[in-house]
């Protein structure tokens, strides 16, 4: 009873059907599966104002669909960074001199200006790969690797996820684990925590390379509420240990009454800072908890996407993120999508605008604005279209603004709220192109 006994019955069947339906089927059958390969590319420009960071990046994602819903994804990203970033030192009414991270030379910041370190001209390469496949009837598993490298930083990571479906695939429960080992090799070596910024070529207070390990755990539930509404709820736990400092960030040491940085004299014949600065120090452990919820609601063609994330960690930072997108179709082949994101975070316990001379040195201290207390808003618009040959294009323009606030008790002497926090204004411009093969 094998197929070998039955020849091509299609012709006989066609004739029989023709007799039955009374029509001759002469039109070709046009049925095709979704393409095997899907490519997504994006070109991104990110630019902060005030001579700060500019990033140009190219992203590629290739996905290959195999039989039985197995999927291979490979991603490549190349980022080219230029521009300057706030070092953590406070502006002064006089000229400031800083030793570059390499320890080879100095750079200067004019009176009244926010100290920015412009050492970072760097290109970062990142590679990701992942494999997803069904495991039996209701389970699916994913395994992936990630790798990235830049001149002073290397990252290697692995991730795994398992998901199970329930209730006719209306409910999915997922469990994920990610492990990462990062290696930092800062220019001039990792500085000693809270060590002084020294003269050029004085590497007495510098170390070598440092490591950082991160373990992430994720537990999630996705639920189709009805034909038009999908919701997701995730809990994640992130545990980082090792060198969690930013090796280039510093704090100014200031006078307790005037708030002016303490003067310093470089060694005879050497160039170096004219004021006292200390490198930051963060704990060597950080545990973060996040709760994330997202909903996607279909409203007769329009799709509303709303999400909220709450994050809390043992550094004292609490954050809330509220994000919404509305996908509005324009005709059959294009759409616009306005986007709004609100973000707020509280400062880390050890965040301080500056260190006070004469006071005992705290165990941990950082003036990195990214650990401070700030509100941020992103507002953007995306326009996308699909050509008749099935190629997808999109353009996205967004504006991102951060507004920080330094706790009043940290404002010392002449310190002024409005000029101390390096508020951020950035533009995001993104071109996307995707196609299948």
């Amino acid at each position: 009873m094998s197929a070998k006994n039955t020849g091509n019955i299609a012709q006989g069947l066609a004739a029989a059907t023709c007799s039955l339906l009374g029509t001759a089927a002469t039109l070709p059958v046009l049925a095709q599966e979704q393409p095997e390969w899907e490519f997504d590319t994006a070109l991104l420009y990110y630019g902060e104002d005030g001579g700060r960071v500019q990033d140009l990046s190219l992203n590629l994602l290739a996905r290959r669909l195999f039989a039985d819903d197995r999927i291979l994804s490979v991603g490549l990203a190349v980022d080219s960074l230029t521009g300057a970033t706030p070092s953590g030192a406070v502006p002064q009414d006089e000229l400031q001199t800083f030793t570059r991270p390499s320890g080879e030379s100095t750079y200067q910041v004019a009176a009244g200006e926010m100290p920015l370190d412009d050492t970072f001209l760097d290109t970062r390469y990142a590679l990701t790969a992942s494999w997803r496949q069904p495991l039996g009837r209701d389970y699916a598993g994913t395994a992936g690797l990630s790798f990235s490298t830049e001149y002073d930083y290397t990252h290697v990571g692995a991730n795994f996820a398992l998901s199970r479906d329930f209730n006719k695939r209306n409910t999915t429960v997922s469990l994920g684990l990610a492990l990462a080992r990062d290696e930092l090799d800062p220019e001039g070596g990792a500085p000693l925590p809270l060590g002084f910024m020294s003269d050029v070529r004085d590497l007495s207070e510098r170390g070598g390379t440092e490591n950082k390990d991160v373990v992430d755990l994720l537990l999630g539930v996705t639920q189709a509420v009805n034909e038009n509404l999908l919701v997701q709820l995730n809990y994640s736990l992130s545990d980082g240990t090792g060198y969690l400092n930013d090796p280039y960030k510093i704090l100014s040491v200031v006078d307790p009454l005037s708030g002016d940085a303490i003067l310093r004299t470089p060694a005879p014949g050497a160039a170096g800072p004219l004021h006292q600065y200390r490198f930051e120090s963060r704990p060597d452990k950080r545990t973060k908890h996040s709760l994330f919820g997202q909903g996607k609601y279909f409203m007769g063609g329009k799709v509303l996407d709303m999400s909220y994330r709450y994050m809390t960690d043992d550094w004292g930072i609490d954050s809330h993120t509220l994000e919404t997108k509305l996908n509005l179709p324009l005709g059959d082949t294009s759409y616009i999508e306005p986007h709004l994101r609100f973000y707020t975070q509280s400062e880390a316990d050890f965040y301080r605008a500056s260190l006070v001379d004469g006071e005992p040195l705290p165990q941990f201290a950082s003036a990195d604005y990214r650990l401070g207390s700030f509100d941020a808003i992103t507002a953007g618009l995306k326009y996308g279209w699909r050509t008749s040959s099935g190629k997808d294009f999109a353009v996205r323009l967004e504006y991102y603004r951060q507004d920080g606030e330094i706790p009043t008790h940290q404002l010392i002497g002449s310190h002024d709220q409005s000029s101390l926090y390096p508020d951020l204004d950035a533009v995001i411009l993104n071109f996307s192109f995707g196609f299948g093969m």
Partner: protein
Amino acid sequence: MAAAARQTSPSVTRRQDHWCGDFVAMASPCQILSKSDRATARKQLEQAAAEAGRVEAKYSRYRRGNIVDRINSANGSPVLLDEETANLIDFAATLHRLSDGRFDITSGVLREVWIFDGSDRVPEEGQVRAVLERVGWPKAVWESPVLTLAPGMQIDFGGIGKEYAVDRAAALAASLSDAPCLVNFGGDIAAVGAVSGGPWRVGIEALGAGSGEAFKRIRLQQGGLATSGDARRFLLKNGVRYSHLLNPQTGWPVVDAPRSVTVAAHTCTQAGMLSTLAMLMGADAEEFLERQGVRSWCIR
């Protein structure tokens, strides 16, 4: 949550680029998708629903007094058939011959001993053999338009009826408008009309995958699409899974059939026949489909 109950005045709702009308027939959720204007889409929906209802009433084995009931209770007497039923019997006879006896509309009585409820109640050899006496198209006398079944035999249009109804409804829709239209009776599909704009996106439930990526997405612009599967009706005993597809020559289930077979062909009737025959081929399903030169998707 089943689809909307039968409505006396069916209505169509607007999706992004087409009209959609739903109704229930042949124990399946049915829908008409039309890119025509609203009034025409409504007419297409009305006519499709009416045709589905007519085919169901005429050929369901559950209805008292219809042609199938009369044939099945004739107890050896000849029955005179109308033209449409004679055409269907001709079709079934041809299929029986083309498939070397694997497709047999008299095999329905086997359901007396095979009840596929997910339990482990598998019938005994003796029981199956007894019922098998009353199975076999060659035992019937067919001289169009007169059909005579041996006493105890029954015919069942379950394997042809839905796909036939889809093609009939699609033809009615095509006669009302040239705009693309898709008829979907519980997964048996036909796409007719002009090939313009984007294709219809049909998702086949891919068993055993995680959510989101679960569908095999097929772009259908013209032709018929039908799926045969054993996902929900089976028996499980001693670790052996007995699919609900019975081989009419042995009386026992086909072994090693794929979990699901989807075929694209010129009409839904052809697609349905090929997917059913592929399933009946068991382990050789893929090989069979390749020989037929049709686009198909098997999930094991």
